């Protein structure tokens, strides 16, 4: 187990290095010039050149990337171009809010998705199954900002059940978390449904029924642990898509997390923040996958970590 974690840790370092490189290249070749954003429209060419030299942006790519990595090795994500503070501090101050939203969002996503999937599989071919699958199709294909705005309009503006935006109380958390849950539930419900249908056909389900077990026990005790295995593997992969949703949802609901931070930074070409948030998101994805791989053998004894 220790060995396994060590090898996974080394792999993760390589993955993060690769991601930092690709992101850095993309930002380097981007036509938008961060210096122009800092200096403003009226700045003279001399001022612009000064700023560029100060930030080290006149150096060749390899030097810039080398410096960034050197900082990274010491836990230094650099300094924001526009906010005049350390990126590490900015991210750390916003991380708790984002983690809270992520946890609530993933919880909502799983409860909705798995619940719908199980119900659809058990009621397969009936009206309810078709309705559920239609719903999942809508949530999968609807744009994230449309769903966010719709939720905001219905539950905050019209019904006034929840605050329109902001952060602080549990009531503030409900709408953004539910929105993330609805957005992500479609994939999970479809996957859960087909996995569950396969498992319900298995010989050991027939054995369980032949023992005289009741329907709910057959489904929850015998079918669910087997059916959930492919879904767990997907949670790790899904974190990436989920992070994209976080950026949109945090912006719409005014949630002061790293998604909102990233959104602002992208608009202003604040490269150190974009790099920092990207790397933090990559860490989340790597950790999510590791977690999924660690949970799977707890459910299925046939899976061995190696």
């Amino acid at each position, binding site marked *: 187990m220790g*060995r396994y974690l060590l090898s996974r840790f080394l792999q993760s370092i390589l993955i993060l290095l690769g991601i930092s490189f690709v992101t850095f290249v993309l930002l380097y070749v981007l036509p938008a010039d961060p210096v122009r954003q800092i200096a403003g429209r009226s700045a003279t060419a001399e001022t612009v050149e000064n700023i560029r030299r100060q930030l080290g942006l006149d150096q060749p790519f390899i030097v810039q990337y080398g410096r960034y990595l050197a900082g990274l090795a010491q836990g230094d994500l650099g300094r924001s171009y526009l906010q005049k503070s350390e990126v590490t501090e900015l991210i750390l101050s916003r991380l708790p809010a984002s983690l809270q939203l992520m946890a609530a969002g993933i919880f909502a996503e799983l409860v909705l998705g798995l619940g719908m999937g199980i119900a659809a599989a058990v009621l397969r071919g009936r009206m309810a199954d078709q309705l559920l699958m239609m719903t999942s199709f809508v949530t999968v294909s609807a744009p994230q900002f449309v769903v966010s705005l719709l939720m905001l309009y219905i539950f905050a503006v019209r019904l006034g059940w929840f605050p329109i935006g902001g952060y602080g109380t549990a009531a503030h958390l409900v709408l953004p978390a539910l929105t993330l849950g609805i957005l992500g539930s479609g994939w999970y419900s479809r996957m859960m449904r087909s996995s569950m249908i396969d498992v319900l056909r298995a*010989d050991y389900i027939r*054995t369980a*029924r*032949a023992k*005289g*077990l*009741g329907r709910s026990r057959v489904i929850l005790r015998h079918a669910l642990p087997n059916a959930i295995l492919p879904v767990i593997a997907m949670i790790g992969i899904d974190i990436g898509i989920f992070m994209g949703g976080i950026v949109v949802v945090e912006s719409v609901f005014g949630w002061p997390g790293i998604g909102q931070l990233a959104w602002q930074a992208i608009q202003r070409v604040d490269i150190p923040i974009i790099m920092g948030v990207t790397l933090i998101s990559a860490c989340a994805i790597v950790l999510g996958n590791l977690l999924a791989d660690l949970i799977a053998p707890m459910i299925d*004894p046939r899976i061995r970590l*190696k």
Partner: protein
Amino acid sequence: MTVDARPLSGADKAPGTAAPVLTVEGLTVSVRTEGGLRPLVRDLSFTLARGEVLAIAGESGSGKSITSLAIMGLLPPPAVRVTAGHIRLGSTDLTALPEAAMRAVRGDRIAMIFQEPMTSLNPVMTVGAQLIEAIRTHEPVGRADARRRAVEALGAVRLSEPVRRMGQYPHELSGGMRQRVMIAMALALRPEVLIADEPTTALDVTVQREVLDLLRDLQRETGTAIILITHDMGVVAEMADRVIVMKDGAMVETAPTRDLFRTPGAPYTRALLAAVPRMGAGAVRGEMPVVETVAALSDVVVRFPLRGGLFGRVTRNVHAVEHVGLEIRRGETLALVGESGCGKSTIARAIVGLVPHEGAINVAGKELRQLDPAGRRALCRDVQMVFQDPMAALDPRMRVGDLIAEPLLIHGIGSAADRRDRAAELLARVGLEKDHAARYPHEFSGGQRQRICIARALALNPRLIIADESVSALDVSVQARVLTLLRDLQEELGLSYLFISHDMAVVENISDRVAVMYLGQIVEMGSRAQIFGNPQHPYTCRLIEAVPVPDPEHRRPPGVRLTGEIPTPVHSVGAGPERVRLTDVGGGHLVAAH
């Protein structure tokens, strides 16, 4: 047409003559299709006496499994249901019982074991948890009591170390051990009726024998009545007091086992019994003159590395095939027998170049390891394979004619018209119609599909056909006809067969020479007469003795009980199994020292 419990002639126990434990009256089970209700079982009536073993025998599609599911109330809803008749357990009418009440019967008063022990246990629950669950579902006992009874039940099916088994998962047990767990689970609550649906069909023949012995012993101890669903007349003869023969959903004949085997009434029963392969019934063929060798293996080794550790180093090897040497002559059938995991299929795959090997494999005068990729492809013309499951071996989206002509296409032989003609000719050769070429595989029966596979194997005029369990999945009557076809083709075309099988009776029927494999090595090899008439190695003897004899007059005494672990072919790097040495005991009959 209710059949009374007739007096049993010569059964080793006296079943109760009181009221039957189970009565089936006019049972009709139908499936709802687009064309209306179609009956799967028609007007079936029988009774089951306390302590009796009743076999329901028949080929696939006869309705025997549907009958058992109907008794259990497990017919797949909503399409399949009982449309007429009654099933009475004692005085309870099961067909009128609501689901909740039926649930209390299932597992408690009627239990069932299934054909596939490998998949019939939940892979993510321990054996113990599954047993305890079965007990606590029906009896108000605490965890500790249920656990104690579960351990007792595992001991009763003679599993070694029952306490340790409780904590194990199904994948840690062999097929035979899993079927024992299933039996323990079914009998833990002492049901009145046990339905065993092909309980040993998926097991190796020696394991089959152990499980049958076990079932018989337990039945004697507990007095549970057994309905044994099987296609194997050998198993019927060994086990049953009374037999019902079914065909196309209806009862053809019912009689006490001895009477049925001695004087079968219905023509279908007679045909079924005639088709059963029997030991000692193989066609006698004269000594063949020594002719050219089609394939020769010498010192062939196949190992599969198992990796582990931080850098994926090879830590252990599966020794699938160890120093095997054999040769196949022109026009002969060499049978390779042994139980699952003994390496017989790996040898087949090595000959066609699908797994890397060490040692020398010489096919049609060419050394396999010295061939370039083009040469290897050309070699496919000389060696073709026919597999066990014809449905899986035929692409469901291709027409039969295209399937048969595909080898010609791959090797660039002939024009499109030539290939079409050849496919038609081959179809006729294997006993199908020429116009079948335009149909798809799903339109054919299992036996016809295997004929299509044989036609495809013949397309390139091979010298050697490797038949890997090619008749194992077929019903006996179909099996007999396919074996006849293989024999005819051999005589006509001078083909050689490497016939891989676990079924000793079939091997005895078709082979000229036999090689017996155990844990990757050949332990005995010789002519059919030598192997079956004078088996020398204890493993060969065990294989032959384990075959159920389709004759109720000659029931065998219980075999030697084996409860320990099976030896494994997995060894650490550097280590390996002890190599056996074959010595000639006369007339080319090779036997390993033992």
